[in-house]
């Protein structure tokens, strides 16, 4: 028997919300955005009034003086627990060895990401957007302790010093934060505080800034969503449509309900939920389920057919009616520039990629009427609150979120449609009574659920000047836009019909800055396969395209690829200055020139999220497959806060990019994903992992992120190393064909 999923209505029922908040909520539930409201206004509406205590929303201090930093961001492996708490500890002069970190609540009014306007972690912004906020918070707390000591000791505040959580006066008086806590809490926080001169930092940039969670994560004690067990909790799995855009027609739950431990079976918007006691029972119930699917609106092409259409679009042989070509960089008159023999043509094909986080998607939800609590590795807090609010008819800020560690994300846990979160809330709403339900996606659910790095095709034509350098550059990108699939994302990311994430890294490239004539355009066809940001987003394809094209141009001009880049960065002016610096550092540390035994080097340089990374890799074809043995990375991420974590992110980011470049692809056959688990979606293993060596460029600039920028560079330097060996350009990924 099939019961149609419930439709949401239009009136939110939040008690105690202001009239303005109710208007905001009504607009949201009705599916529209209010003009004149900031996103934080909207997302924070309905948030409970919270007393954060004397030291504000980011700092809690125990009676013994131990400092806890509240992290508004998700710690999904990238190490921001360490970096963010070190910023506070530095300005506060706290005792670093006892500083603790906790995930904050979800509350866009106080915890919004200042680079996004809503609470969320992404774009490698955690450190960058928190830098001044947390320095100020730390310095303010420090000033309150200094004033407290001055009051108690009756000495001038200016004579007081603080070190490692101990406040001292030259007279010999000294006290721990804990001793002064009551007095400090009474001090009115100063409205402006003096921050340290970065040259006086003693913790930031030192080797003492290490992870705070390594022991918990080496003993099985760290808690992830998968590890939540609450009294009376049920486990849910969902039978999803085998094709994107498919819908349930009908289902027969007779056999499923006979499986011991299965409690209930019902339809939700995205499929059929099977709820039971534990994963094993729920899965067996799902296996016994019979579901008929309606494929009328589903994608039924193969990915090869879709890609062929992309190529036709790029050649101008096909123009789907759902989009128009949009220019992302244009200068000079490109007409007639690309017809002669002095033109290099290159095309590139990129497959769909799954994030394949180690912990598949999951979420624990509790719903009673419009009351809703979520416990999980939240990454896009505000977006998830808004999505959950529309299911339970409440204001976004009233959705309570307890954030746990995430077993990886690479972008996946924060999605524009909050897909797995909405499923969990729908199921918990059906179960009701605030009974906890843990939605568990199996690896197969996770891998076939879309939200892939979009498939993409690039076609590049470069007219080469007499000096061997680009005189004119034509660039066509065909790729899906996930921003255009969501009104709120579109409002933030689409300008002049260009979704910035589809072309970032080509737009803004120093190579285009160095080229007098440029005609660069993007076309974004629509189809039901959902796509999403994937570690380093647009750079996953623009970096290989730009960097591999440069190596082909250098080879054509018979100029060394390093020298060729140096000249282009010089021509690009300020747009190339940081690129030149990291290139020089990477080449100096790696060495350049010939290697023995058939190994070759490749170089690439790419900026993403304000961080510029260069790497030199050493590669060779062994047993028919490319192998990378060593990668030397140089990174300019502004002031280095947690040096060892910068290295860790370059190591991990390189492996992630290398895995995708070598093996990563999701292909569709008649609309069905062919890769369902790690047996068919091959990923990098220990025996294939290179040694990565990281060099950080000294810098006085504000810090930028490191979670993503390491990833795309290896996707470019490896093809360049292979090109150096074979002279054959790479034109499609992955490099190892299945």
């Amino acid at each position, binding site marked *: 028997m099939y019961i149609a999923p419930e439709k949401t209505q239009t009136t939110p029922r939040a008690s105690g919300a202001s009239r303005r908040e109710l208007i905001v909520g009504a607009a949201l539930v009705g599916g529209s955005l209010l003009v004149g409201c900031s996103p934080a206004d909207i997302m924070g509406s309905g948030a409970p009034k919270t007393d954060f205590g004397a030291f504000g929303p980011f700092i809690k201090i125990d009676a013994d003086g131990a400092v806890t930093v509240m992290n508004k961001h998700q710690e999904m492996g990238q190490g921001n627990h360490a970096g963010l708490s070190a910023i506070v500890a530095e300005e506060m002069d706290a005792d670093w060895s006892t500083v603790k970190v906790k995930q904050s609540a979800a509350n866009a009014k106080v915890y919004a990401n200042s680079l996004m306007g809503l609470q969320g972690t992404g774009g490698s912004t955690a450190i960058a957007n928190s830098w001044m906020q947390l320095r100020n918070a730390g310095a303010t707390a420090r000033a309150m302790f200094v004033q407290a000591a001055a009051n108690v000791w009756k000495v001038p505040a200016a004579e007081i010093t603080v070190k490692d959580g101990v406040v001292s006066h030259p007279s010999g008086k000294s006290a721990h934060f804990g001793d002064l806590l009551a007095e400090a809490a009474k001090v009115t926080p100063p409205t402006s505080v003096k921050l340290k001169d970065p040259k006086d930092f003693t913790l930031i940039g030192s080797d003492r800034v290490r992870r705070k969670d390594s022991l918990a994560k*080496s003993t099985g004690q760290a808690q992830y969503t998968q*590890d939540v067990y609450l009294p009376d909790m049920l486990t849910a799995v969902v039978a999803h449509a085998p094709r994107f855009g498919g819908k349930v027609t009908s289902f027969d739950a007779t056999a499923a309900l006979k499986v011991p431990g299965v409690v209930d079976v019902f339809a939700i918007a995205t499929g059929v939920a099977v709820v039971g006691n534990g994963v094993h029972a729920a899965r067996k119930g799902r296996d016994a389920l019979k579901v008929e699917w309606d494929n009328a609106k589903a994608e039924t092409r193969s990915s090869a057919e879709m890609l062929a259409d992309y190529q036709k679009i790029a050649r101008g042989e096909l123009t789907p009616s759902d989009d128009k070509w949009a220019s992302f960089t244009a200068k000079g008159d490109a007409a007639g520039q690309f017809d002669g023999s002095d033109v290099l043509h290159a095309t590139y094909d990129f497959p769909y990629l799954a994030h394949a*986080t180690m912990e598949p998607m999951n979420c624990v939800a509790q719903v009673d009427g419009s009351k809703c609590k979520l416990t999980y590795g939240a990454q896009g807090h505000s977006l998830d609150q808004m999505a959950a609010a529309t299911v339970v008819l409440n204001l976004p800020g009233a959705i309570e979120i307890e954030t746990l560690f995430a077993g990886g994300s690479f972008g996946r846990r924060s999605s524009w449609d909050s897909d797995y979160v909405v499923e969990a809330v729908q199921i918990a709403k059906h179960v009701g009574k605030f009974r906890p339900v843990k939605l568990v996606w199996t690896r197969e659910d996770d891998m076939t659920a879309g939200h892939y790095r979009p498939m993409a095709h690039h076609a590049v034509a470069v007219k080469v000047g007499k000096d061997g350098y680009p005189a004119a550059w034509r660039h066509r990108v065909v790729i899906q836009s996930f921003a255009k699939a969501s009104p709120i994302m579109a409002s933030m990311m689409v300008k002049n019909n260009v979704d910035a994430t589809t072309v970032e890294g080509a737009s803004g490239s120093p190579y285009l800055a160095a080229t007098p004539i440029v005609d660069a355009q993007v076309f974004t066809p629509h189809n039901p396969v959902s796509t999403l940001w994937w570690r380093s987003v647009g750079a996953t394809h623009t970096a290989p395209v730009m960097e591999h094209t440069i190596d082909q141009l250098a080879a054509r001009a018979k100029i060394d690829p390093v020298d060729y880049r140096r000249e282009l960065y010089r021509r690009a002016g300020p747009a190339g200055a940081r690129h030149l610096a990291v290139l020089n550092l990477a080449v100096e540390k790696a060495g350049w020139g010939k290697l023995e035994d058939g190994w070759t080097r490749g170089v690439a340089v790419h900026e993403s999220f304000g961080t510029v990374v260069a790497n030199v890799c050493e590669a060779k074809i062994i047993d028919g497959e490319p192998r990378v043995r060593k990668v030397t990375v140089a990174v300019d991420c502004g002031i280095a806060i947690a040096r060892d974590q910068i290295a860790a992110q370059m*190591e991990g980011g390189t492996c992630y990019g290398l895995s995708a470049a070598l093996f990563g692809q999701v292909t569709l056959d008649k609309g069905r994903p062919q890769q369902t688990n790690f047996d068919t979606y091959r990923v990098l293993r220990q025996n294939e992992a290179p040694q990565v060596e990281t060099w950080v460029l000294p810098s006085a600039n504000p810090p930028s992120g490191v979670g993503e920028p390491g990833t795309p560079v290896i996707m470019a330097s490896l093809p360049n190393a292979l090109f150096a060996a074979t002279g054959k350009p790479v034109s499609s990924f992955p490099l190892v064909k299945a």
Partner: protein
Amino acid sequence: MAIELEINGVKRQVAAEADTPLLWVLRDELHMTGTKYGCGIAQCGACTVHLDGQPIRSCQTPVGTIGAAKITTIEGLGGAHPLQTTWVKHDVPQCGYCQSGQIMSAAALLAATPKPTDADIDAAMSGNLCRCGAYQRIRAAIKDASGELAVNAKA
């Protein structure tokens, strides 16, 4: 059905269908959450535990087949195992989700091969995926611990 298991030296009674993978008995019945689910098909190693000292994938081990064999999980290593010490020293974990399985595979390796070569590490550890790419630190921490184990053995 009622099944008796010996886990980390303690006898435990569980009620489970015989075909239930040990992984889900550990997790859903006993709430021993250190052992992780990553793939369910013996491809990722996140669920690695020891059965009589041998590393096995608990996601592919029906609980009815275990009998009297002794099970050791990450909780059974105690927290001060040389590998856990070097894991912290090298800040190996990133997201950390794979690390229980990595450490269990590495512990079995060191028990059998106290001074593993790079080739030994490749052979023993390539069944354990780390999507965060902590591979070189895993290797370094194993080598570091193998030195420490050797010192301890001499003393």
